[in-house]
């Protein structure tokens, strides 16, 4: 058993003043001790618990955003729909996109990154654990704040792209857009702090021997995404501040009458917005790049190329933003440049598809649910990628942009791609996180219903778009529907029906989770249910709080696989030489000592709580804003004055014969 010990603060050095134990000296600022109650989740800084909280919250918002989507599809099921008024419809599609992008896919990717990056690189936690917790609470409070607008006079109604000048108070007089702007600012803090945290963690805290080119590919993709976030979030932050100042303080950044050019907003939004697309998809690319090799019993084909093409997407992704603006009146030179750069980015993306197929090629494939979702991503993302190439052709895009063809395209990429990747991750890592394997039969129902539903919903939208049905339309009319096989009426009906099947598929996932954890028949999952390849499986299910009893030395890419299997020198056959249990027992035979884990903290949740108070104040009452600001200052002071460690009783007792902790190291200050 590894020993988590408290740092000894009172090693007397002759002549030196007695060292004061901070936890005692600053009584009111004591760090909370570990408990097993639910309150522990409020003060935890454990990356695994935060990962689970990110996941649960994000899934909640997934359901919210999904219900919004179903309402949209019910409205469009027939001509001149009556389910939603124009006003409600505009709020619905604005919030559907905002929720899915900012409150589901991004935080769900953050959930996986939080939970698995430290495990995959053999670290005990992230570099800044308290900031990690602060990021989660910012995301949660930002998301709740944003959604309270539904009950306070209506949500934002300008579309998730929120083009100026339609976003000014003149054209959107409710507070919806104010909530939207401020809510996204708060969640933006989560992304920004998270990105710095993970970059530092990945670059500095890898286990001995884990070179960058031995990192699991998921961690690689997370690293690329964090750099994208680090540079993209500030751009949207600036844009949101400009809009905020325009709406709240009558600034004129986008006011045409005052000489502004509304295209400024579009450029700012899409300089953020396009890298954002890769922020959404790359984590899922990472997940399936973990899963396909495991279920093919082969290493990822062309690992360095997959890693570097991810990085290449990260770079080129900054040079394509204006392809969202081909019809917005840029000159032909800009259009041509962005058209060509958009085609260029198809290359590193295509490389990934090729590498996944080649990984399966010649493998020994098994088709458990994670693998099915991964293959689903490969196929559906290919469709989305190819339709993407068709509108990189700018003249063609001027016919397609702002029609359902684009809606089809990005749902194939984001639902068929990103979300399928996330579901692959749920099934793959569930036993690691919760000791139980999700039911395979229910999993297959879940998968196939989602495949059928997703393709029925978004497949027909290609036709709708090419037949000229624009996006963001509260109603479509019989007069413009046509009569042939491709008439809008039929395909709108199919798409709406598909959305119900898709919802049913997702319901099966929820049923699966409930069944897996409530049914007494479900056994504890084996230690290594998938015969995995990477470091996160080289510890117990779920991992102990300090992740590894002993930090492994890494000699290979796919270290775990290499500890389990060896190639026979003569026959070249690959043979299992150790089970997962044996590998783990071998590692745990020599547990590390002097492990220091960060202590829990009250302050992340409290500092984050100050932000929505300030924002409500900004909208309704400047006095409330001052109260929020004062609360923010106080809590930041508390954070700063917090002692580095928890009280004495929060540590393992000294192991017998070791004479107690003698180290003077302190826990990470985070």
């Amino acid at each position, binding site marked *: 058993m590894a020993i988590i010990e408290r740092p000894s603060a009172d090693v007397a050095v002759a002549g030196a003043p007695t060292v004061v134990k901070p936890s005692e000296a600053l009584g009111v600022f004591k760090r909370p001790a570990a408990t097993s109650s639910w309150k522990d989740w409020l003060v935890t800084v454990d990356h695994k618990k935060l990962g689970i909280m990110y996941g649960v919250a994000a899934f909640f918002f997934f359901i919210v955003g999904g219900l919004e989507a179903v309402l949209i599809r019910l409205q469009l099921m027939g001509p001149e729909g009556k389910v939603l*008024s*124009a006003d409600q419809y505009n709020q619905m599609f604005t919030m559907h996109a905002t929720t899915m992008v900012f409150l589901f896919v991004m935080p769900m990717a953050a959930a996986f990154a939080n939970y698995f990056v430290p495990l995959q690189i053999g670290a005990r936690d992230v570099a800044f654990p308290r900031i990690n917790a602060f990021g989660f609470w910012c995301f949660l409070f930002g998301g709740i704040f944003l959604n309270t607008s539904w009950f306070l006079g209506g949500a934002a109604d300008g579309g998730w792209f929120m083009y100026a*000048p*339609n976003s000014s108070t*003149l054209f959107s*007089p409710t507070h919806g857009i104010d909530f939207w702007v401020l809510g996204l600012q708060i969640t933006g803090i989560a992304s920004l702090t998270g990105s710095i945290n993970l970059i530092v963690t990945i670059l500095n805290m890898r286990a001995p021997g884990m070179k960058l080119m031995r990192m699991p590919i998921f961690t690689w993709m997370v690293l690329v995404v964090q750099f994208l976030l680090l540079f993209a979030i500030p751009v949207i932050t600036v844009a949101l501040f400009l809009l905020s100042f325009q709406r709240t303080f009558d600034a004129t950044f986008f006011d*045409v009458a005052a000489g502004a*050019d*509304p*295209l400024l907003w579009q450029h700012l939004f899409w300089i953020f917005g396009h890298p954002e697309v890769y922020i959404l998809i790359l984590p899922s690319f990472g997940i399936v790049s973990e899963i396909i090799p495991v279920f093919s*019993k*082969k*290493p990822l084909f062309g690992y*360095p190329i997959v890693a570097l093409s991810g990085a290449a997407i990260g770079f080129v992704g900054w040079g394509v933003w204006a392809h969202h603006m081909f*019809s*917005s*009146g840029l000159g*032909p030179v800009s259009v*041509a440049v962005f*058209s*060509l750069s958009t*085609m260029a980015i*198809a*290359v590193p993306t295509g490389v990934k598809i090729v590498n996944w197929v*080649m990984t399966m090629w*010649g*493998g*020994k*494939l098994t088709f458990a649910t994670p693998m099915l979702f991964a*293959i689903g991503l490969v*196929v559906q993302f*290919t469709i989305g990628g*190819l339709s993407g*190439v*068709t509108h990189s052709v*700018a*003249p*063609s*895009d*001027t*016919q*397609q942009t*702002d029609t359902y063809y684009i809606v089809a395209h990005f749902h194939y990429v984001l639902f068929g791609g990103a979300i399928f990747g996330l579901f692959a991750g749920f099934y793959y890592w569930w036993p690691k996180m919760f000791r139980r394997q999700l039911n395979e039969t229910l999993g297959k129902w879940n998968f196939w219903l989602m495949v059928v539903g997703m393709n029925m919903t978004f497949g027909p939208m290609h036709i709708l*778009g*090419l*037949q*000229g*049905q624009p*996006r963001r*339309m509260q*109603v479509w009319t019989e*007069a*413009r*529907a*046509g*009569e*042939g096989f491709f008439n809008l009426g039929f395909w709108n009906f199919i798409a709406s029906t598909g959305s119900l099947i898709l919802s049913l598929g997702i319901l099966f996932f929820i049923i699966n989770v409930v069944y897996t954890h409530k049914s007494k028949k479900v056994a504890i999952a084996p230690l290594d249910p998938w015969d995995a390849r990477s470091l996160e499986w080289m510890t117990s299910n779920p991992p102990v709080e300090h992740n590894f009893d002993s930090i492994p030395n890494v000699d290979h890419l796919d270290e775990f*696989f290499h500890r389990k299997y060896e*190639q026979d020198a003569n026959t070249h056959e*690959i043979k299992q030489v150790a089970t997962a249990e044996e590998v783990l027992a071998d590692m745990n035979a020599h547990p590390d000592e002097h492990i220091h884990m960060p202590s829990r903290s009250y302050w992340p949740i409290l500092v984050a709580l100050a932000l929505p108070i300030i924002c409500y104040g900004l909208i309704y009452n400047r006095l409330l804003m001052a109260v929020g600001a004062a609360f923010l200052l106080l809590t930041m002071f508390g954070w700063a004055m917090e002692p580095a460690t928890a009280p004495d009783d929060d540590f393992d007792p000294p192991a017998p014969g070791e004479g107690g902790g003698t180290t003077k190291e302190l826990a990470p200050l985070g």
Partner: protein
Amino acid sequence: MNPNDGMNDNLNDNQRHGDSVKKTPRRRLWALAATGAGLLALAGCAKDAPQDTWQPAGPNAEQIDNLQQPVFLVAGIVGVIVFLAVGWAVFRYRDRGQGIPEQTHGKPVLEITLTVIPVLILIGVAIPTASTIFDLAKTDDTEMIVNVTGQQWWWEYDYPANGDNADRYGIDAPIVTSGQLVIPEDTKVLLRVTSRDVIHSYWIPKLNGKKDSVPGRVHPLRIEGSQPGIYAGQCTEFCGLSHAYMRMETVVLSRPDFDAWVANQLSSYTPPAAGTLAAAGESVFISQCARCHQVNGLANADGSLIVSAPEQYVVSGAAPNLTHLMTRNTFAGASWDLLNSSCRDDVWNATPEEFGARYLAGVSEPCLNQKDLREWLRNAPEKKPMYADPTKLQETDGKYRGMPALGLTEDQIDALVAYLLELK
């Protein structure tokens, strides 16, 4: 531009795949590829979808179509190849008890090949794309100019009375209309697109791709129709509450028909005969409508001309000019037809030869779509979502966005309809 460039690259790609997959029946591959291509081609031939993007009716849209057809084909073929490769891998390499495969980390030659092939395909796509972009941006051979202005939630067309417009088409006074843009056949028309409030987008799929109308900017958009007819379109940049009801149509007329249309638009106003229902309607119009809607030549009893002042009542500062309302066959941002459905079908389904005469006949009383027009006059914001509730206009100093409910009596509506029918 040679669209076949891209296709040839793809054939090579296909063959290479065929070689590396030794046992794939190549015929099946081709059959599937052909099916995919066939489906895509079918998508281009659907009947009667007025905004179909695959049925160009003018050279600009045709140029786009010539570009997109091969691109879609190539994309479809690449897609089929990927699906076959995935399908084959899933079928051939599923676990049938074979040993653990060799732990290969990649084959550089294969990887480079499979990177270079898409690069070549994309170069094949990029070259015609770039040249088409510049072709479509040409404006130096323009023959006619129309200013197109978007506002919530309708389009205004303003034919300036100078240059070619005056010299070649006899437009010697500005023509201001809305809902339907009328242009002569085989004429390179330059639309100067702008907006009075938020961003809209002008799009007639059969004539060209879309172009945003942005306040403070004027964007050039060229359209040209090769055949007389009506071409439907819709605002495609989200523009607020009634975005779905911001539609438009472009009408292409033969040159003689266009000349007749111009002459009619420039004809002067004839007040309705005294004592008729229409004359009563004129006074309703003057008291209720004329403050926003201009009718050129409309005069007060004392003979002074009435000039509308929409800028006092409407955020965008404009309302449709109704001088020759009944020569158009739509109203309220082309959201509803002024023609009843049978008369509408006569116009929309007319052959190119018959079309001009039927269109120029305008809207007569038996053809009028009484239902929608009356509902509109009774309570416009109920029919089309607009910001016209006087109690909720603090942000706009009481100005409307859209048309308010006027609280007309049924008698007033009867008179007004009779009057509007005179506006030919």
